[in-house]
């Protein structure tokens, strides 16, 4: 038989309200009636556990919060602070409920009286105001200089020159903008991806120690997987918030992401498969036929998207085309940012 429950509030004795300098409290008294014995397990030694059935029924109907007016004219939300259940008859239990300001002056529930962890269900302990987030993002492009093309499309010598052999074959990455001193390169649009995550923090978590940690972590990259992005691909730029005593505080964290990469000895650059979900396989393969393949030293892992690829050119003769050309002779990958554990951001 299904449990059916009715609830009746006690006349006059319920809703007692008291307010003091440090606290506000309201008490309610209800009577809950139902076929609790029908749903109880009858233990041969200890008897039926209809008390547990009644408690569960009470949990299901008692509101977790109560909004009350303040002396100043506003409102404050009180959280469920205590709940006691006492049997009156086999099918009737008396429930006394107290609502008050959560511990920490409203901080634990973000000032809105979100119930204490005791009544918050199986996820209790994470903080009540941190379940849901908002994001904003920006996909854009900015001008950068590319000194070596992705590949020559056509390369021809001027009409009338006897030796028609050219130094670059179709598809071969080649330096752009040769000068006597080096390679000027050409402007290209480079993709940029930035995103903000807004986390709603209880005021008590926004401590000076936490803010100091954010400052120390600004301009570092992630040393582990972060929101599905592989290690070393996300740069933490800034975090901003304006604290509040009585409500959850939106904290905005700003990040930029650049895809990690490996260098392959090839004419072709292979971008990461857009459907790839494994962070270990999320990297681009940049083709460079002039140097041996390279990965992060000693690890075999991709380079950070935030490491800088740097070429040095010098003039050298090209025997086939009988030309004197700028040729790459040194390639350096520079580390530009330190890494940190983004779990410490507590997003």
């Amino acid at each position, binding site marked *: 038989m299904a449990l059916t429950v009715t609830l009746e509030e006690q006349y006059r004795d319920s809703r007692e309200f008291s307010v003091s300098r440090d606290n506000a409290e309201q008490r309610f008294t209800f009577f809950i009636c139902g076929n609790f014995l029908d749903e109880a397990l009858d233990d041969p030694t200890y008897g039926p556990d209809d008390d547990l059935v009644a408690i569960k029924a009470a949990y299901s109907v008692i509101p977790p919060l109560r909004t009350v007016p303040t002396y100043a004219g506003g409102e404050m939300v009180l959280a469920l602070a205590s709940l006691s259940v006492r049997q009156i008859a086999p099918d009737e239990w008396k429930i006394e409920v107290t609502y008050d300001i959560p511990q920490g002056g409203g901080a634990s529930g973000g000032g809105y009286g*979100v119930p204490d962890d005791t009544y918050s269900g199986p996820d209790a302990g994470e903080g009540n105001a941190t379940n849901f987030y908002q994001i904003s993002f920006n996909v854009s492009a900015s001008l950068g200089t590319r000194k070596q093309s992705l590949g020559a499309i056509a390369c021809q010598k001027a009409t009338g020159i006897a030796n028609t052999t050219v130094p670059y074959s179709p598809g071969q990455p080649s330096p752009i903008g040769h000068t006597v001193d080096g390679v000027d390169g050409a402007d290209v649009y480079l993709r940029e991806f930035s995103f903000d995550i807004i986390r709603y923090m209880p005021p008590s978590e926004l401590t000076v120690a936490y803010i100091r940690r954010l400052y120390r972590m600004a301009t570092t990259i992630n040393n582990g997987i972060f929101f599905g992005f592989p290690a070393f691909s996300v740069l933490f730029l800034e975090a901003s918030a304006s604290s509040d005593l009585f409500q959850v505080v939106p904290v905005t964290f700003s990040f930029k992401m650049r895809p990690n990469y490996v260098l392959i000895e090839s004419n072709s650059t292979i971008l990461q498969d857009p459907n790839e979900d494994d962070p270990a396989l999320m990297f681009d393969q940049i083709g460079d036929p002039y140097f041996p393949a390279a990965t992060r030293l000693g690890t075999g892992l991709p380079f950070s998207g935030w490491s800088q690829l740097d070429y040095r050119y010098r003039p050298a003769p090209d025997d086939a085309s009988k030309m004197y050309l700028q040729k790459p002779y040194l390639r350096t990958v520079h580390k530009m940012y330190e890494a940190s554990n983004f779990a410490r951001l507590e997003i």
Partner: protein
Amino acid sequence: MSNEIQSNVNMWLSLASKTNGKTLSLFPSDYATLNKITYILPARTIRDKQDRITLVQVDKQELIKRLKSMFNFMTKEEITSELKEISNGPDSNS
């Protein structure tokens, strides 16, 4: 949208997701407050002997769904999935 409203919505979302059971019980005045943010029909009302409403119960999943879609809130998993989709550049074969 002001931060205050957003944090209000976040409070309701957190509350709904952390309360046991299929419904969220509210006093009528709190139900009225919630309805200023998003209108949601009661799943059940509990009345006294004079037929006055003592408590209002709303469907938790429906409330979460409405608030999340109206104010574009997401869980960590949803953010992760969305960010991956946005960032995974052009198809390598294109």
